[in-house]
């Protein structure tokens, strides 16, 4: 065995080796190289530069103050009340968004596995929010919450939720719900589509067998559907969590992080720091902190996935 494998390079000589190299080393990279090149230049190198920025003072407004400052940015971050507030906001933003997106998405997916008249049209229309450009979803919902042209404050007032029709995005206690509702609207189709595909992959004879065994609809749902979907649900929810935690567009357009930073999440804080204050060093430090938090989460996720796949 050993002497055979060591011998295996010899016969055939260079010609065989060249063809093997061609097929296993060169040719795939020929197809891959543009992708690798672009990802490297536009994502990987900036990532490294970004990490190095976090140890420097780079403020475009103070061009003569540039230089290495060690951990200064991180010390500043540690005592930055706004950062900790943003972290807390990130948690609530992500938690409520994902919970509602998932539950409503699951409900929609279940509905879409049943038969009803006009299903194709229904499906296309319900999935439509997913196709609406993010900035437009944000603007639309901002307008809907505006008492001048939007009906929502008036409805909420007449339902007794609000004392009078005012814009909830001006109220630090409620403002976060504006972007969250927009996010739910925008994200339900994603979950519905993903879960629908998973539901359709459940073999039909499992349902038939359950029916023959006399299971009720509720039993079928809890004993067959949910366990079957569980691994897929876990992975999708977790990946989506990361995505939503990073997702600053809605918040930036709808509230800009205000009022009084009550809707500032970490990623929108990065953007405002970089874009408005042009303080790249500090923005990069926040970004590294966020990356670190998400990385920890991702490692946990991969560990969990391994466990789930095994069982």
């Amino acid at each position, binding site marked *: *065995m050993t002497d*055979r*494998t060591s*011998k*295996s390079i010899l*016969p*055939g000589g260079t*010609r*065989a080796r*060249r*063809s*093997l190299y061609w*097929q296993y080393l060169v040719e795939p990279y020929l197809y891959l190289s543009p992708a690798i090149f672009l990802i490297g230049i536009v994502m990987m190198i900036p990532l490294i530069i970004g990490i190095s920025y976090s140890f420097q003072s780079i403020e475009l407004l103070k061009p003569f103050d540039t230089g290495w400052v060690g951990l200064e940015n991180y010390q500043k971050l540690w005592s930055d009340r706004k950062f900790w507030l943003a972290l807390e906001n990130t948690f609530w933003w992500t938690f409520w968004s994902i919970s509602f997106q998932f539950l409503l998405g699951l409900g929609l997916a279940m509905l879409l596995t049943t038969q009803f008249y006009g299903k194709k049209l229904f499906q296309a229309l319900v999935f439509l929010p997913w196709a609406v450009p993010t900035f437009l979803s944000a603007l639309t919902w901002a307008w809907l919450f505006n008492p001048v042209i939007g009906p929502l404050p008036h409805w909420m007032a007449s339902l007794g939720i609000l004392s009078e029709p005012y814009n909830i995005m001006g109220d630090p206690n409620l403002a976060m719900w504006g972007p969250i509702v927009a996010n739910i609207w925008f994200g339900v189709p994603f979950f519905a589509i993903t879960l629908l595909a998973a539901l359709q992959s459940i073999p039909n004879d499992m349902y038939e067998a359950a029916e023959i065994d006399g299971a009720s609809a509720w039993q079928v749902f809890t004993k067959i559907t949910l366990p079957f979907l569980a691994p897929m649900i876990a992975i999708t929810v977790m990946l989506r969590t990361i995505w939503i935690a990073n997702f600053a567009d809605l918040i930036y357009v709808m509230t800009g992080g205000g009022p009084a930073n009550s809707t500032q999440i970490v990623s929108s804080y990065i953007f405002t720091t970089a874009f408005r204050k042009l303080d790249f060093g500090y923005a990069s430090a926040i970004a590294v902190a966020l990356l670190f938090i998400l990385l920890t989460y991702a490692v946990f996720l991969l560990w969990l996935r391994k466990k789930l796949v095994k069982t």
Partner: protein
Amino acid sequence: MARIELKDVVKCYGTVEVLRDINLDIKDGEFIVLVGPSGCGKSTLLRMIAGLEPISQGDFLIGGERMNDVRPRDRDIAMVFQSYALYPHMDVARNMGFSMEIRKDPANERMSRVKQAADTLGLTALTERLPKALSGGQRQRVAMGRAIIRDPRAFLFDEPLSNLDASLRVEMRLEIARLHQKLGATMIYVTHDQVEALTLADRIVVLNGGDIQQVGSPLELYERPANKFVAQFIGSPTMNVVSVTGGKNKVTTADGVAIALPHLKGTERAVEMGIRPEHIDVVDVNAGHLIGIADVVEHLGSDTNIYVDVEGLGPILVRKHGNIPAKTGDRLGLRIQSENAHAFAADGVALRQTNTNEA
């Protein structure tokens, strides 16, 4: 038309060897069947011949020319795939003529060859259909048409009939045999079905676990299997194998019945005896070598299969021509046609027969 040679061919995936020391000399015009259980490496071997899988070691020659590093397109070999691999976006005629299209042969020649092949295979009325509008058998024919149209040096078949139902399979098997007679081309055919192997092959190559077990004509494999694996793989129903103790020109079963095997060399080394179901006679209870009780009796019309429970030896299958009036629970005597019995040494190798003149 060409002779195909494989010399010390090895295939590794990483450090795992899936084929070892394959030596095979296929004569021009020969019909070779590679047979073995799934995972034995037979398809890999075929794909190496086709050029779809690189050869890790050794030499592969077509017509005396080394072909290891020649691309599939330049080997001038046609292949019929298990899945047929018809191009879904091309009609039947274009599917069949695709190789000539690629080689930029003149269109009118291509047309006439396609028409000729379609006539041969009974596809004339279907040439404008897309593959999805064809039945399984028709697709199979198109796949064969695609191979024969270019008159290659050799044909490769990768389990071509395994997706067809039983009756179509018999029909297509005949068709392939006829095709071989007509074209006289070198054909290499992979299957796990021993009936296909026995009916089609000039020579059969039995593979197991990456090694060639035996190469020989169908009759040779049936009559003189080289080892226990081949003995049990070839022949249906499967050969009975019982543990024995070796002795001079005889073997002795566990319950002390001695069976003389004068036609075998070195019976002292035997640990098992093999006997095909059709080589056991049903006799009166005390007239045979063994006594047992019929457990299940299958009346197939032309044959009768009797599963006999022999005390101390376990179940023995007996097959007799015609209808034998046996029924479950009968006590039967079994006489072994000892001249047709095989014996195997501890390593599974069959003991050589005295009358053969193999080296």
